[in-house]
């Protein structure tokens, strides 16, 4: 098994609460994830969860914006936070990001050109001004924008769709191997959403870029990803091939999530919610047992006493739930196997 480009190994991130450090929040606990290998292995992996699941923290860790409290962020097999400057430089080129709000990512002081010329300058991609202009224009046409209509303007003079495309163009300028996309479509209108998702798929198919798609929206995740990892309060509850996870969820929490997806089909309605917690406050964090046990309709005694480990429940499927405790345990190093989906073309693989 070859090393992947970017990996989280046994990573825990704790946010300490203020100066007195009274209330610490465990955002992510003992997480493993890996993304990006060779070109043929390019994949789209969804990290899905509700607010507070730690999915954004995971993205921040993978982008090297925050340091893990314990565990390692590995880049090409090396510990990123122990790495010298030139490794970081390489890392910054190979791992890029697309963010949620296509307006916030622009510095209001500058024209949109700044967004595109900065990486060209900082990474020395061009030898002359003319070459720089050529690179920028090529990047813009690459995402379906006309340079003449885009350059020389301020961000607020562009439409939301144009703005998001320019940010994609920026990420592509550096020819990265991995793109972390944190809720890239949650703030755009439906008419634009499909266009952006489509272009993400194109990046993967045509340019061999692996994408980590961080989202709360299982419906879009189902559509563009091969693999999915579901987080609940900082821990993985279920991971595997997206088709099987969404069509046949095994973890009680995944079941609840999937059954709550508002599918746009009036003939396939939710029905009565099974979750009985209704309006009660969320359970306190930091229980010894399974984190979902307080809300789980199938909770057993053991669930309140011990944390479940990940169990193999299929070839490309792992579930962290004692309902499956007879299955073999997934070793930390095996998480790649769960997530290595070799399904060739997803659009054909419809049920």
């Amino acid at each position: 098994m070859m090393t992947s480009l970017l990996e989280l190994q046994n990573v825990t991130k704790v946010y300490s609460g203020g100066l007195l450090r009274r209330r610490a929040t465990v955002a992510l606990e003992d997480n493993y994830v890996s993304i990006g290998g060779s070109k043929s292995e390019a994949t789209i992996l969804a990290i899905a969860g509700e607010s507070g699941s730690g999915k954004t923290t995971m993205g921040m860790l993978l982008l090297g914006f925050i340091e893990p409290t314990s565990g390692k962020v590995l880049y090409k097999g090396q510990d990123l936070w122990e790495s010298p400057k030139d490794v970081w430089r390489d890392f910054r080129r190979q791992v890029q990001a697309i963010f949620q709000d296509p307006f916030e990512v622009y510095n209001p002081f500058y024209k949109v050109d700044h967004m595109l010329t900065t990486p060209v300058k900082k990474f020395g991609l061009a030898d002359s001004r003319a070459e720089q202009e050529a690179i920028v224009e090529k990047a813009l046409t690459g995402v379906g924008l006309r340079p003449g209509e885009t350059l020389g303007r301020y961000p607020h003079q562009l439409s939301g769709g144009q703005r998001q495309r320019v940010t994609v163009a920026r990420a592509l300028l550096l020819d990265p191997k991995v793109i972390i996309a944190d809720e890239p479509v949650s703030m755009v209108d439906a008419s634009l959403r499909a266009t952006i998702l489509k272009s993400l798929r194109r990046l993967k198919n045509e340019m061999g870029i692996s994408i980590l798609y961080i989202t709360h929206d299982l419906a879009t995740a189902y559509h563009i990803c091969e693999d999915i990892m579901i987080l609940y309060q900082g821990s993985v509850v279920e991971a595997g091939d997206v088709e099987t996870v969404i069509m046949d969820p095994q973890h009680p929490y995944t079941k609840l999530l999937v059954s709550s997806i508002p599918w746009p089909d009036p003939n396939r309605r939710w029905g009565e919610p099974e979750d009985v917690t209704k309006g009660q406050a969320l359970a306190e964090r930091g229980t010894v047992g399974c984190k979902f046990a307080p809300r789980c309709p199938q909770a057993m005694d053991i669930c309140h006493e011990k944390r479940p480990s990940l169990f193999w429940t299929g070839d490309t499927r792992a579930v962290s739930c004692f309902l499956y405790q007879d299955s073999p345990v997934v070793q930390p190093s095996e998480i790649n196997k769960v997530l290595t989906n070799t399904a060739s073309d997803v659009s054909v693989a419809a049920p």
Partner: protein
Amino acid sequence: MSETAAQVRDVHEASEESVNEAVLQVKDLHVYYYTEAGVVKAVDGVTFDLDRGVKMGLVGESGCGKSTLAMSLMRMIKRPGRIESGQALINGRDDLASVSDERMRELRLREISLIPQGAMNSLNPVMRVKDQLLDGLEDHGVKLNGREGRERVNALLESVDLDLDVADMYPHELSGGMKQRVCVAIAISMEPSVLLADEPTSALDVVVQRQVMATIERLQAEMGISMILIGHDMGLMAQSVDQLAVMYAGRLAEVGDVHDIFEEPLHPYTELLISTLPTLGRRGEFTGIPGITPALVNPPSGCLFHPRCPHAMDICSEVAPTWQEIRPDHWVACHLYGGE
């Protein structure tokens, strides 16, 4: 029995007499904003009927005027906006577009109420939940003594599936879903005939969204409230409403039964909107809508959708299509259906 209950019953009886009539009849409503850049026609000739006990969804992209429509029905449009013309008859009696401010204050909460966008963040942070629940009632002259008040609060909390201890809590002690439930409780405290809910679940996680929607729908059915659910999420609409109204650039494109619309959308915009959605069957297919939403200051001529419409004809850029009932209870504004 307290005076309130009698009043509530009174309202119900009055509306039950006119049971065949629509609870809310909006006729050719225009709401304009007079900005420095020009006149923005945020609501430009909207006509529809809302029947008793019906859940209607109002969908559209951001800036299409759906929130403005809700605010104008509550008569809460602020300057430089103004209700230009048209009427909105509630219970066949009062025209929301023209009644006096004083009468409007009586109608709000009692006959029409609103769960505004981001309502859960608009709860008063220094007031206990019970006081916020009673606040609206007191504004309407409902006098309750301590015990009656407590009973009323408990009944309201129970109706929105909240624990009774929530009454003595402050908003910051509640989760997002719980706060949203409190907002629902306030909105239905006077048993209105029409409830407007502007993206009531947009900030909530899917599981909580589903639970809150279940509560709203149960209340709506129990009390016979007619509801307009405003939002941009077609999935949520498909899950919750009976009738769907699709709005584009200040005008209605299509109104009809939600099943009919999802099965056979008549307006090209609706058709495209539905085709952009991720469904279970068609995995990995993506269709976007080309072009961008028009600027309402300087809208295109004729049908506002024609620059983006795949079926656009010559007439579309010249004449705005009329609002017509193509099939029973299925309305559409499109020249494709001009002949019928």
